[in-house]
């Protein structure tokens, strides 16, 4: 095994000094008045498993450099274009600079041009983990075996995915700005099915720190759900009281985050629009127990310390006690509207309450328990209305107890309506809320209980 272990050597990515050298070199080739260089570099490792064995895996290393060239003057207006390459030698960098400059000269004047930022101060990133960076194919295979072996023993069929990333990002520009940060990400998800195909259960976790992900526990949880969800019965679609597990909440609340664009709101084409070119900042839009923030320096849901333009990120409160506090302003729209640009770092954390899942179930006369959602797609941007289906663990609650598995259901509803119909909230936890099982956005949300959630049809899918 020592041969296999030796593969594990630390993840490859560019150091601060290497990024500085590349940025300096690329900026040195620039012949136009302004330029920005974005560098991304890192290693990705993944192991897939299906039918209780590893099916594929992959390890890759890449570095990409994007050069954005700015041509013009304040008097005549500015033009810009970008070129990306993953060949970071002199020829590759020269060519990227030349291409960006050539395209920028051909672009029309940009009426929304924003000058590059001066050098900025950044807080240190909170999302690097040595354990994640050091996880090698052998370590991944062992984690997978902690799920597949018990599944095999229990006569179940396990499938899943483990994905780790370790890398660095940097931004530099011709005004002397330079930013650099390392980050890691890890996610493990598993779907365990019964051998007869009538039951399916899911569990997953995501964190920048691999040590925070408990593979055997995830496998056991998915197996338990698979067994409990066997032979589901049909129920009438309609409006139900629902206890949502945190993953299901994360699946839906992310869409509120995506809809926070200030410009779309001000232009009259968003849920956050109001007639007369106004927006809903200051309006109460959801239950007063709901507060949603992005905090790049919260170690539980850390994000990047800077944006792609090099703007330092900071804690941003989107909704506080149910009231919209701010929307997402890019630098141009912020200047036009006379506010500060938003730089939230991209993570999402929702406030919770003191109810446990058990209490929520115990207090439900008739309702449903939903583990997670699938194939979520927007139906109507005016109301953030989405459709999608429950999956891998949907149960009926009767008289305060989970009584049986039910068939999956399609819903047509909005996370905004959902957060207006809140009955109870639990303790927020980090979830794996991306549909494809990648690391996705860092999301921390509570389990919740909601009334009148709108299910519109039944599915035979297990």
């Amino acid at each position, binding site marked *: 095994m020592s041969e296999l272990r030796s593969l594990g050597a630390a993840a490859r990515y560019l150091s601060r000094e290497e990024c500085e050298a590349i940025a300096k070199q690329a900026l040195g080739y620039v012949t136009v008045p302004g330029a920005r260089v974005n560098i991304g570099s890192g290693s990705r490792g*993944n192991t897939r498993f299906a039918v209780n*064995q590893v099916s594929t895996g*992959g*390890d890759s290393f890449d570095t990409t450099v994007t050069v954005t060239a700015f041509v013009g003057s304040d008097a005549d207006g500015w033009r810009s274009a970008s070129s990306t390459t993953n060949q970071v030698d002199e020829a590759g960098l020269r060519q990227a600079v030349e291409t960006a400059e050539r395209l920028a000269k051909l672009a029309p004047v*940009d009426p929304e041009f924003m000058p590059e930022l001066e050098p900025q101060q950044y807080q240190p990133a909170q999302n690097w983990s040595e354990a994640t960076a050091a996880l090698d194919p052998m370590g991944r295979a062992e984690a997978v075996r902690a799920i597949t072996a018990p599944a095999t023993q229990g006569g179940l069929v396990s499938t899943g995915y483990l994905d780790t990333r370790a890398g660095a990002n940097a931004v530099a520009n011709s005004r002397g700005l330079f930013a650099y940060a390392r980050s890691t990400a890890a996610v493990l998800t598993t779907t365990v099915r019964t051998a007869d195909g009538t039951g399916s259960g899911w569990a997953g976790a995501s964190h920048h720190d691999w040590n925070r992900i408990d593979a055997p526990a995830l496998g056991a949880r998915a197996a338990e759900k698979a067994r409990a969800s066997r032979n589901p019965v049909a129920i009438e679609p309609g409006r139900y009281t629902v206890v949502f597990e945190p993953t299901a909440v994360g699946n839906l609340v992310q869409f509120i985050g995506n809809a926070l664009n200030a410009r779309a709101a001000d232009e009259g084409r968003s849920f956050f629009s109001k007639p007369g070119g106004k927006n809903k900042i200051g309006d109460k839009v959801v239950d007063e127990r709901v507060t949603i923030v992005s905090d790049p320096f919260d170690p539980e849901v850390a994000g990047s310390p800077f944006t792609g333009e090099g703007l330092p990120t900071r804690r941003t409160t989107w909704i506080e006690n149910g009231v919209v506090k701010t929307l997402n302003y890019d630098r141009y729209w912020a200047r036009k509207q006379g506010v500060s640009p938003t730089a939230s770092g991209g993570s999402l954390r929702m406030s919770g309450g003191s109810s446990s899942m058990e209490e929520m179930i115990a207090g439900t006369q008739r309702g449903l328990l939903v583990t997670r959602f699938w194939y979520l797609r927007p139906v109507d941007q005016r109301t953030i209305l989405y459709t999608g289906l429950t999956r891998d663990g949907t149960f009926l609650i009767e008289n305060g107890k989970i009584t049986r598995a039910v068939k999956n259901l399609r819903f047509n509803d*909005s996370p905004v309506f959902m957060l207006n119909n809140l009955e109870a909230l639990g303790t927020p936890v980090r979830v794996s809320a991306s549909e494809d099982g990648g690391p996705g956005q860092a999301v921390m949300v509570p389990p919740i209980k909601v009334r009148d959630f709108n299910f519109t049809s*039944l599915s035979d899918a297990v």
Partner: protein
Amino acid sequence: MGTTRREFVRTTSAAAAALTGLAAVPSTARAALAAADGPAPSPADPDIRALAHLALDAARTAGASYADIRINRNRTQSLFTRERRVQGLVDNETMGFGIRALVNGAWGFAASREITRDEVARVARQAALQAKANSLTIVRPVVLAPVTPTPDGTWRTPIEIDPFTVAVEGKVALLLDANAAALKAGARFVNSSMFFLREEKTFASTDGSFIVQTIYRTQPSMTMTAVSKDGTDFQTRQANDIAPMGKGFEHVRDAHLVENAPRWADEAVQKLSARPVDVGRYDLVLHPSHLWLTVHESVAHPTELDRALGYEANYAGTSFVAPPAAVLGKLQFGSKLMNIRGDRSQPGSLSAVGWDDEGVKPESFDIIRNGLFVDYQTTREQAPYLADYYKRAGKPVRSHGCSYAQTWADVQFQRMPNVSLLPGTKEQGWDDLIAATDRGIAIIGDGSFSIDQQRYNAQFGGQLFYEIKGGRIVGMLKDVAYQMRTPEFWGSLDMIGGPKSYQLGGAFNDGKGQPSQVNAVSHGCVPSRFRNVNVINTGRKA
């Protein structure tokens, strides 16, 4: 032009490596690939061939019973505009290689952007060692269906105009002119874009194949938004009747964006005053610009063999078309009018290639014949699972050529080819189907779409909805979506367009796999009528 350019790159790259402290020792092969806008690498290029052999030898030495290498250079260009402004003008080039190795019946895969001799040998060993680690859990070892090796293959998408040779000013002007035409016709907002891809890939395997292909894909698109005068409503019209295609710049030219923009804008405005649909059951007349997506989601995905076998259960899902032994030649998927074929050869289609990503020359194959399910989409690893069925049917155990990886950094796996609904024998079209319908809804363009993980229950929106009464269109509807259960829906197909009404729709970014990879496929379709489908109203008050 090769040598001088190569010499230049080789020298300067070494200097750059020394400068940055990166361990890059460029080989001549890497330099050959790096020729900026030069011709694609040729299978005759001894450097590329030597590099490929080095990789395959290193993998074999490390214990691989089979190995393949893909050396890719993908170039993309995207232009994005809104109203009178260019929002983005981006050129992207990524180059690297990926090596797949089979050891003890398990796969390993490793990839790197550094196309050097040392790195290729290191990555080949890494792939083989990863395969060894993965083999610790192997229950059923991978067996590959036979393939006829192609020692010197070349293929190129037949295009008229290489999009990368067309001046950017012209592209920008075209988009801004189209935007102006839309604004003049009543759109409040308009977004337009063009996206071009050139994928150059060299494939070599221990089976003796060596194949070089150059593939082009082009996508022009526009979205119009209309806002009501009182600011209480907005409606969009995506011009997705212009499908992405496996063509060159001629596809943009032939899309006539400037000429069509006023119509699309007017349709967005009309949607503001369209009547909200009454919920209920209707006969649906579906245009090919809409139906392609329903075919994609409800027919093409569930007939992927990896899904049926449970390999995608953790993300894309499994399939109701399973288990194979119970459904092959037995499952009545839809009405007798339904004939579905897989291919990678239709001219202009997104999936067209000479060989797939494991060196298999694809052939057309029937998936559904007269409504009966007869075959799955397969790769070399998957075809042997169907050996018994193929033997009984008198067919060879052979991959259908459905292997694809989105870039050098991703492992290849089963991806759908073009999956098309074949025309009926009677020459009839859109207008004939409407004229034959007493009470129904005609739908044009694809919209919101969602389907469960076994592909039973789906919900589809669209771009334009028209009410049909007494064989005539009587007005526009809005907030329409239909919900369906796949076998019932396809069983209700009772009228189908003829050969002249056939056209290609397509998905540029179909996601599957973990890590999720995108695939581009076309779906040929004809206008079709489905009876008594459940329609819901998606409009709600904020």
